């Protein structure tokens, strides 16, 4: 049975499985799920009533979270007296670069299943400005548990949602169990941004939740853009971002706007170029996404930029590429060496280093694709094309 927001239905007794899924499914790693066990006053009472990846079960074992599968097993018979509602929330991991609202998803879904119950609550995410949602709540009504579908939330994320139930998420991280004297020295705080230098590659370790969506962004100074009477433009620099992909199985692909080879995330080549910024109006430049959950399929990715038309004034462009994997520091590759007369720049190489992502700064200039290909030995066949 499909529910709509506000609608409710009985869930029976015993064990109920609540699953949270999203479309596109490969974005699941960028989402956090949590549950709030509430008393009659609508507050989380006592410790452990806020169930999340840092506290995957309440003390009674009534609500148990599998954070990887984003599912809760709720044993209704074990829910302590005084708990009248269990709120199920979905929020965007604040560590995911560029992901600020659910509008970047097509759809979200809460499903509640038990031997005799199959409740589905699909939520269309288009246009949603929220980054944390109350997907639904189990609640006690005349002695029986029901599920109400909601899909309502907060633009500001999990913090305002949790405050709604009396939980301060900044304090909700699990407290260290050991006494201070027995604790190992705290590791140095990881920097949030690293400026890559040539010949000093950095390897990104795979986080427990996987790499998620890796975002590669190219931004530059566009120079003087004059708007004509009819909105045309003249001058300015147009850089195109692209990559050459080599998979572990030997398959190779080129992803770039030229030739409309935008790629895809949910299937090979597991890399996708977002819309080409030819207007010079976007502040965000050009962005390439790599499905980090399929990093095992990759051997290497060569990130490059080229100047499709106009003079190759690399120095004036002040181009910068950032590589952001969720939970890892942002890697910055500045195009701080320039070339005149060459329209192509190999910027960075991402290599699969035993599951890690090794990122090497290149910033080497070539006349065009074939010369760069030859230097990095991908072995494509090249022909001229137009956008």
């Amino acid at each position, binding site marked *: 049975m499909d529910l709509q927001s*506000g*609608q409710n239905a009985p869930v029976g007794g015993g064990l109920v499985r609540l699953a949270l899924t999203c479309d596109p499914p490969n974005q699941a790693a960028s989402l956090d799920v949590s549950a709030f066990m509430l008393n009659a006053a609508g507050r989380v009472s006592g410790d452990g009533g806020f169930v999340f990846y840092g506290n995957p079960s309440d003390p009674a074992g009534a609500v148990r979270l599998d954070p990887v599968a984003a599912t809760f097993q709720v044993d209704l018979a074990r829910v302590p007296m005084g708990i009248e509602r269990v709120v199920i929330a979905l929020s965007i991991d604040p560590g995911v670069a560029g992901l600020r609202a659910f509008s970047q998803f097509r759809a979200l879904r809460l499903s509640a299943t038990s031997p005799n119950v199959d409740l589905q609550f699909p939520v269309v995410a288009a246009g949603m400005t929220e980054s944390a949602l109350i997907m639904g709540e189990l609640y006690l009504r005349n002695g029986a548990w029901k599920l109400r579908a909601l899909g*309502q939330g907060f633009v*500001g994320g999990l913090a305002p949602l949790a405050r709604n139930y009396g939980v301060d998420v900044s304090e909700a991280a699990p407290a260290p169990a050991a006494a201070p004297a027995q604790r190992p020295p705290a590791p140095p705080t990881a920097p949030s941004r690293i400026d890559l230098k040539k010949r000093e590659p950095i390897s990104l370790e795979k986080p427990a939740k996987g790499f998620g969506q890796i975002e590669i962004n190219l931004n530059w100074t566009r120079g003087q853009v004059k708007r004509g009477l009819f909105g045309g433009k003249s001058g300015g620099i147009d850089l195109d971002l692209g990559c050459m992909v080599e998979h572990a199985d030997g398959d190779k692909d080129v992803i770039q706007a030229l030739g409309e080879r935008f790629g895809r995330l949910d299937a090979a080549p597991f890399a996708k170029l977002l819309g080409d910024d030819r207007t010079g109006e976007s502040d965000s430049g050009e962005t390439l996404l790599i499905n980090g959950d399929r990093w095992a399929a990759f051997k290497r990715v060569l990130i490059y930029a080229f100047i499709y038309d106009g003079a190759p004034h690399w120095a004036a462009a002040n181009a910068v590429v950032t590589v952001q994997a969720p939970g890892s520091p942002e890697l910055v590759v500045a195009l701080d060496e320039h070339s005149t007369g060459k329209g192509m720049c190999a910027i960075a190489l991402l290599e699969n280093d035993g599951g890690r992502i090794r990122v090497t700064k290149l910033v080497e200039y070539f006349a065009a694709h074939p010369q760069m290909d030859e230097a990095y030995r991908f072995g494509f066949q090249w022909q001229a094309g137009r956008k």
Partner: protein
Amino acid sequence: MPVNLTKGGNVSLTKEAPGISKIRFGLGWDARSTDGAAFDLDAVAVVVGANGKVLSQPYFVFFNNLATPDKSVVHQGDNRTGAGEGDDEVIEVDLPKLPAESAKVVFAATIYEADTRKQNFGQVANAYIRAVDEATGAEVMRFDLSEDFSTETSLVFGELYRREAEWKFKAVGAGYADGLAGLVRDYGV
């Protein structure tokens, strides 16, 4: 002490507040605590005759028609967000001014633009209606709608009705899934 009604229950306002003539009916609900489109709930009062239908179109009182021609039923105006202390919307009834052929006054609320905002009473908490004797300021009756609402977009809270010389109030708490249209259909505007 006001009488707390439960669904289906009734109370004689004339007995609880002898001599009562002007009554403020306050309707309330909890505004949403989440972000997103605000809930704009509108109170509605319909003066119906013995046949259960509205006396005439001007006796359907809502945000576009704030009073009956005889001022027997006067809507105090629209509260657009449900924010603020106390009742969200107030409708005043002047009993002696009600036309002789009026059998009851039905109190309801509808959610404005419920379809486009995808809102319903399943998302609204703690709805109530209460009656206050204007002369004394005393609350005579209160009905907390504790029903487990779902996709209803309009809701009949209760009805004020005549039983011989008495004015009584009945707690209803029943909804329609099609908003104002459901009310219009049933009360024949």
